[in-house]
Every structure is written in structure tokens, then in C-alpha cells.
């Protein structure tokens, strides 16, 4: 089996059961290996070493165990969008707005200033509501246009979109 297939299997696993760690999504090594053994017809160690060499994955030690961490690249985004698009990608703008507002209100208590990281909102919507990244970007942009008085955007954050001529990554619900 080609390393490229194993790479896609690992990335799919990461999307489905992984935990986000900055620029990576990590899966416990034991879980990943159990799954990969079913697919691999060559020694797994060699395949994993190849993937590490090409920079697709990295192994992080955690206590006595280890985790396989996959870099968030375009291939991973593509897999994630493919999986979640089959979910609720047909969500209307009205439903999105209600969900977006309720998440903002919930997350604002965790902030110091009331400005919520758009990246956090995006991840939450993707993970629990099946909203794809493309849809998220499109709808936030439309909300910024149609509900102009409602949201204040600011610089920063872990996921940035361009609204007007500025890149923003923080959002605050200023008028409901």
C-alpha cells in the first residue's frame, strides 16, 4: 500500500477522533496503530518513518504513551470538509445566525474582553454542527454585510478572514 493512502487514513482518523493541539491534530498512537494495521501490507514502522521524513506527521511523547500528530494542511482541510459537508451544509443563514450568536454568548464568558476567537467558534461549529469551513467563512461574511450593526470585529485570533480591507479573527456581539 502506498504511503499516500496511509497518510490519508491517518488524516481521516485525526479528523474523526483527534484532538487539536495548535497547528496539529493528535491521535493516541495505540489507537492509530490498531486501525492502520488493518490497512497496511508493509511494515508500519517504515511507512510512519517515511511520513515523518516528509513532514506530514510528528510523534509526540505524552507521559508513558505517544501521540501521532498530523499537521493541519490543505489535505486535512479537504478531508474534514468532505466528511462534514455530508452533515448539515444546507443550514440556512438564519439558523447559522442563531447558532453563531448562541455560541458567541456561551464563549464570551471565557474571555477577558468579550471578544471571541473566530477560530474557536469555527471549530465548535464544525465539530458539533457539521458546518464546513467554506460555509462558515461565507456566512460570517454575509452576517458582517447584512447585520452590520450587530458584530464588532477585531484583529487577532487563530483563524482570520478578510472583511473589507482588514483581516479579523475576533468577534463580539455588540447589539442583539
Amino acid at each position: 500500500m502506498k504511503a499516500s493512502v496511509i497518510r490519508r487514513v491517518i488524516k481521516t482518523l485525526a479528523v474523526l477522533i483527534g484532538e487539536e493541539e495548535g497547528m496539529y491534530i493528535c491521535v493516541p498512537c495505540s489507537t492509530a496503530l490498531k486501525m492502520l494495521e488493518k490497512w497496511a501490507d508493509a511494515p508500519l514502522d517504515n511507512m510512519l518513518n517515511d511520513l515523518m521524513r516528509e513532514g506530514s506527521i510528528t510523534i509526540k511523547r505524552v507521559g508513558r504513551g505517544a501521540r501521532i500528530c498530523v499537521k493541519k494542511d490543505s489535505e486535512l482541510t479537504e478531508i474534514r470538509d468532505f466528511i462534514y459537508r455530508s452533515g448539515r451544509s444546507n443550514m440556512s443563514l438564519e439558523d447559522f445566525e442563531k447558532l453563531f450568536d448562541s455560541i458567541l454568548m456561551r464563549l464570551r464568558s471565557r474571555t477577558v474582553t468579550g471578544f471571541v476567537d473566530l477560530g474557536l467558534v469555527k471549530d465548535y461549529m464544525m465539530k458539533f454542527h457539521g458546518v464546513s469551513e467554506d460555509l462558515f467563512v461565507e456566512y460570517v461574511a454575509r452576517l458582517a454585510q447584512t447585520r452590520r450593526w450587530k458584530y464588532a470585529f477585531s484583529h487577532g485570533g487563530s483563524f482570520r478572514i478578510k472583511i473589507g480591507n482588514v483581516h479579523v479573527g475576533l468577534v463580539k456581539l455588540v447589539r442583539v
Partner: protein
Amino acid sequence: MRNLVAASRRASSLVGKRWIEARDQAVKLIRQGYPLIAIVGRAGCGKTHLMLNLYDELKEYVRVYVDTTFLEDRLLGTIMSSIATSHTVTNLVRAAKCPRGDATCKRLRDLLASGIQNLADYAERWPTSFLRDLMHLTRLRNYRGLIIFLDEGAISSDDPQIQQFVRSLHAFRNLTAEIENLHVVFSILPDVIEYIAKVDAPLVDVIRTAMIILPDYVDVEDIQELAKAYPAKQECLQRLIENYEMLPPLTVRQAICLLQECENPTICGVEEAEVRIE
């Protein structure tokens, strides 16, 4: 385009009811003895202007304003070195009448007399000692205390020097606990303080006790006041008020800009949304 950046020559005027309330609250916090005061707000919401206004207001204190964008780094020593070479401090040291046997006062006088660089070096190498000496002079001249205004400590959470800034703020937090009547007032962007909350929670616990969050947007009343205080075209004022509900929440800077350039809102950062992933 004029008046889009805060300047000390306009610092004495402050418009907007909520900004005046914020100023009054900051003055109260300082006079009540709070050591670390954060002025929080998104870019263009009037943080620097408020700091300059406070500088103007609190004349019973020795006040030093540091625009950290002029500094090479954000280390405590560099900040103190900049304070040492400020007009305020050099004038304070020069004018000090040292009582007989006052070694601290004499040390500062001698250092300055031997060249301003020597005073700067002393402040950079021994920032804590320099700050204590400075406080000694402040008391000697019967000032109520010392206020350090730190502006633009980190220009964003991506600023490569943000870690140094956080460490310096933490050091100031520890110093203000030991040195009475020392206050540090600093401006900070939302993304920077959210970053600090992740990397230095104990610091944010202290910052929260005296944090002033400036309004995120101007209302119609604020726009009318701004039009009186800043250059404004009458037709722009009218258009701005008529279309207020159609506009995104405007910062002070955007409002001042639109009052002069309503035909071309793009240059004020206000336009139809266009979205692109960075």
C-alpha cells in the same frame, strides 16, 4: 487626512460621554491606589488618546509616557532606560535639591551630570534599583506618586516581542506590590489580553481588578460631539447620522475619518464585506 492618530497637543479635549466616564474611572482607580490599570479596546477606539488625556489630568503625579514602538525590545531594562532619558525624569533629577547625606538623590544627580547615557545604563542594568531611586525623588519633591504610561506594548498577539512585554508587565506587577504609589497604566488590544490570559493567568487576575474596557463603537451622540471637536464636513455628518444603522459598529478613528471622507469610506476601513481566508 488629519487627526487619525492620537497626539498630545489634542490630549486635553476628550469627547463622548462614555469616554469621559472611562477617564473618570481611571482617575479614581489611580487615586484609590490601584497599581496596574489596563485600558482595553480594539484598534482606533481611543486608548492612546485617553492615556494622553490622563497624562494631562494627573498633574499631582510624576508622569512618564513611553511609546514602546520606539524601543528596540520590550524588556524591563529597555523600558526603564527609556524612562531615564525622558524629559520628565531628567528634569526631575536636575531640579532635585538633595538633602545632606541623601545618597540616593546624589547618585542620580551625579549619574546625570556625568552624561545622560550613564543614567540610562544604570536604569537598564538595574531597573528595580533605578525605579526605587526614582520613587525616592518623587517623594522628595512632594509628588503624590509616579505613573508610567505604557503605550503599544504589543501591537498584536502575533508581535514577536509579546513575550517580553508580558514578562515586563509581570515584573511591574511585582514591583508595584513592593513600591508604594507606583502606578502603571497601559493600553492593550483585545487579542493581546486574551493571549496573556492563556500564557500568564496570574497577571490577568491582577489586571482584571482595574481594567477599563473602552466602548467598541461610537453612537450618534458621540458622532455629533466628534464633529464639533474634529474637522468635519457638514454633508458627511448628515450622511453619517442618516446611515448610522446601515454601518458596522464604527470606532472613533473610523468615525473621525468618515466625517472628512464620507465619499470614500474604503480608506476609513468601512466598505462592503469581501471575504478571503488568510
